[in-house]
């Protein structure tokens, strides 16, 4: 429980300056839900902490048909879970949000913090990957955009440079006839870190074939990852039971899980297969016809089907 200076910038510029001044001994925080745990256990010992709570203009969630969804860096997981636009257009992200921790933590935790924390088990990350999200990153040198699947480098490490801030996450508008779901596999119905998480987002052509399929896996590799092989198997195909089963098998093959207190490696791999099938089947079944929030919530967290 080391002591630190607590800094509250009132603008992004000020925040960037504080980060630049503090260098490696400064830590940026948003909701602090990851920060406080690591500080208390001594894993992180910054000399100063820069808190973004009072930087204006970062807590928005907006949607428009051209740009899609824009999530500000201070928008919380609870904001996402409760947002009508997100609920009707990005069900897999709602599933990730509702499966996340419990209400108290969701009220503090930010989606951007979930990204920057880069845990392989982060619950919003598979959906962000499956929706092809883009990250807007600013630094003292200016601004850049990075696709989500280039953000995660290693457990707890992102492609952000020291002193950079993720200010906005953007999800392109979904194509017509798109469906999606995230399922979190954990022994408990809430307040649990995922043993495995799988998000699938499928867009169908008028003839019933897959225009696109994106499958993202959590907690089964050093970073959240896309299952490109499994996706490729579906594009241009009718997503029938046989093709979905094959995609599940390929997704399971593509991951690289570890064994830990939560689960063995083989079991994780098998769960990737099962959850890939389940999320894909649901995505196909609900394409263009989004499920109710209650259904999303039930499917995302129920322990047994």
């Amino acid at each position: 429980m080391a002591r630190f200076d607590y800094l509250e910038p009132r603008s992004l510029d000020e925040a960037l300056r504080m980060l630049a001044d503090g260098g490696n001994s400064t830590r940026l925080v948003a909701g602090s839900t990851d920060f406080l745990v690591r500080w208390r256990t001594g894993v992180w010992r910054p000399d100063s902490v820069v808190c973004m709570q009072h930087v204006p203009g970062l807590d928005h969630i907006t949607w428009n048909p051209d740009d899609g969804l824009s999530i500000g860096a201070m928008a919380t997981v609870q904001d996402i879970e409760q947002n009508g636009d997100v609920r009707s257009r990005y069900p897999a992200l709602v599933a990730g949000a509702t499966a996340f921790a419990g209400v108290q933590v969701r009220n503090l935790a930010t989606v951007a913090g979930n990204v920057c924390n880069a845990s392989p088990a982060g619950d919003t990350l598979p959906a962000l990957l499956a929706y092809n999200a883009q990250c807007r990153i600013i630094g003292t040198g200016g601004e850049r955009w990075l696709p989500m699947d280039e953000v995660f480098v290693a457990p707890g490490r992102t492609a952000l440079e020291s002193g950079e801030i993720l200010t906005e996450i953007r999800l392109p508008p979904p194509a017509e006839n798109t469906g999606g779901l995230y399922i979190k596999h954990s022994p408990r119905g809430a307040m649990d870190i995922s043993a495995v998480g799988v998000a699938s987002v499928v867009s169908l052509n008028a003839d019933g074939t897959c225009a696109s399929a994106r499958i993202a896996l959590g907690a089964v590799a050093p970073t959240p990852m896309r299952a490109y092989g499994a996706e490729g198997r579906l594009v241009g195909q009718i997503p029938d039971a046989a093709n979905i089963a094959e995609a599940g098998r390929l997704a399971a093959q593509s991951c690289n899980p570890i064994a830990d207190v939560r689960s063995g490696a083989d079991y994780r791999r098998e769960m990737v297969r099962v959850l890939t099938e389940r999320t894909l089947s649901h995505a196909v079944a609900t394409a263009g016809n989004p499920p109710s929030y209650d259904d999303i919530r039930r499917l995302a967290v129920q322990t047994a089907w």
Partner: protein
Amino acid sequence: MTTATQFKVLEQNHPRVDAYEKVTGRAAYASDVYLPGMLACKLLPSARNHARIVSIDTGEAAALPGVRAVITGTDFPDIRFGSGALRDRYVMPREVVNFVGEPIAAVAADDEATAQEAIELIKVEYEDIPSVVNPLSAMVEGAASVHPELESYEGYGFTLGHNVSTLLDADRGDVEQAFRDADVVVEDVYRSQGINQGFLEPMACVADVEPSGRLVVYASTQGPYQIRAGLAAVLEMPVSRIRIVPMELGGGFGAKLRLAFEAFPALLAMRTGRPVKLVNTREEVFTMNGPRLPVTNYVRSGVMNDGTIVAREAYTIFDVGAYLGAGPNSGIGHGIGAYRIPNFRLRSYGVYTNKIYVGSYRASGVADMTFAVESHMDHIAQQIGMDPYDLRLHNALREGDVSVSGAVVPSNGLIETLEAIKEKMEWPRQLEDGHGLGLALCEWRSGSGPSTAAISVNDDGTVSLLTGSTDISGSDTSLAAIAAEALGIPMGSVIVAKRDTDMAPYTGQSGGSRVVYSQGTAVQRAAEDTVQKLMALAAERLGVPEDALGCEDGRVYVMDNEPQGLTFAQLAAASITSRGGPIIGTAALSSMPYTPVFATQAAEVKVDRDTGQIKLLRYVQAQDVGVAINPMAVEGQLDGGVVQGIGRALTEDQQFDPDNGAVRNPSFASYLMPLAIDLPEIEDVLIRVPAEDGPFGARAVAEPPGFGPPAAIANAVYDAVGVRVKQLPLSGERVLAALNGDYDEIPFDVEALRLAEGII
């Protein structure tokens, strides 16, 4: 027998007597104690699981500004103490550490951050000693010794060889012959996991030395007199020099029955002359304070084709970790379950390993035994093609049978609990695919031990009740209800005194299902004593013989002439100048007769065949409570116990590193207790066959609810998908492995154990 309708106070719901304090946050817990000049204490955990301490350099820590004292093991008197049957440990190790996490130094500083900083400046040089982590390996010749000097320890009764701290046995009849005569022999090995008590409030205490040199400790404890005795032993002080003030208890479940960490702030307070507070972190609770450790259970039964169980053999290996923090004694009596089995051989081994020492938890060991015995019952039923319900009914203990300990089973409601569950669950029932039902019987006994109570009558006709028992799960409210019933006054007229070890008479711990049953009996008797004194005084004042008087509604009256009488208030006022002086009723007892508690539980589950995960759809329990002192509190106990049992069944699992025994998941983020979302509504049926003893016929309630869920759920899983998982928790991973046919039986060399005793 008294029936429910005859009661004026009992059998009705009463909110807790301390409800206002609790809901307004005013109730004071040990961490709420702030004394002037108070220092903060932090502990240094051992980094090794078996090592000689070559040196501990505390110089830099002691020199840090704000640090007031640093202590290590050698600062304590050179005295071994024990919290189980054996004196096998030092309060802080002097030369050798025995588990990762064992506190080896303590610091008192002006604030917590400084104390923690100082802890990190302490340098320890270790020299590793061979260690052993798995209890089955620890019993083998040539295994590393956890306690090489075991045989010299006070309390050690057997020379059993490797690392066996205790061996308990119970035998009856001709076991070998009965197995030869049996139509079918069924054999199983079960294993249950490490379990943390999971109480909400971490250990906390404040130690203060009064100017006279007397030590005062404010503590979160179930056993103030037991802490006093423990402190007296390790500090070499007479108990009269120590006062324990038990604060509100934020849960204990057995973990706070004995001396925990109180000696560290106590010695630091003695060194610095200032009050010292220690509030443990959750991680410290997980890594320093004894949980339950894994149990391996070998069970074999000889059964006749009609379902009669004629023989039982059970070998139970209790991993006790580094020290015997709690004995395996609770386990031994439960090897035959709630059944009449004429021939048995039961053995419980307590085996040392280099991991955190074993502690107590809600009838230590019995939940493990019940998982084995009740899963085994279903296995037997399956082997002989009998319905599991019928098998249980056929073998269930009846009045007049003899329990394992040799006591005759008195009247009880076991059969009624079975029948109630059959009706409520509509057993047997055809279910959809993947769904299943399972049963478990639970048995325990009402807790005994020294109990005392005093009741004084106040000027306004209310009474003050004084006992030495710490309130646990609303026990104060139940004691008040017993006093009110016995005195014939409303609940609101009973004041429950806050107490400490100077003020209240000696009593046993608040644990083991004994407070309401034993302590409650003392309260009932003290109330009766009070009534007798009130009647005697009234007889004197009214000029009538005592047997002409009645006592009701806070008033003593002449039975032939009801208007003539005196209220308790009038009598209390009169007593001040009376011959006998102010009215005070007292009672004390040392033990209570054997009074069993029985319950039947049933689970309905759905199993996900692809993930192996279990969804609990329904949970029903019927328990014979004798008389429900406070039905709301009884149901609270029943529900809480079942929820703990469901955690044991499905998700809770304190894991240990196979190499160094360190706790792998010392946090509630990875030690998964069930949440509301994971639970069905728990349905309770209270069966009321009054106990022959106990307050107004009440039986103990607390422990049995937690025993049943692992077996009931495992049996339901078998019913649902036809696989039997013999290892807890019943994780998706294990169930799926079983469904895929690659589930390994647990290896167990029972021959070696029989041979060691000369049984061929």
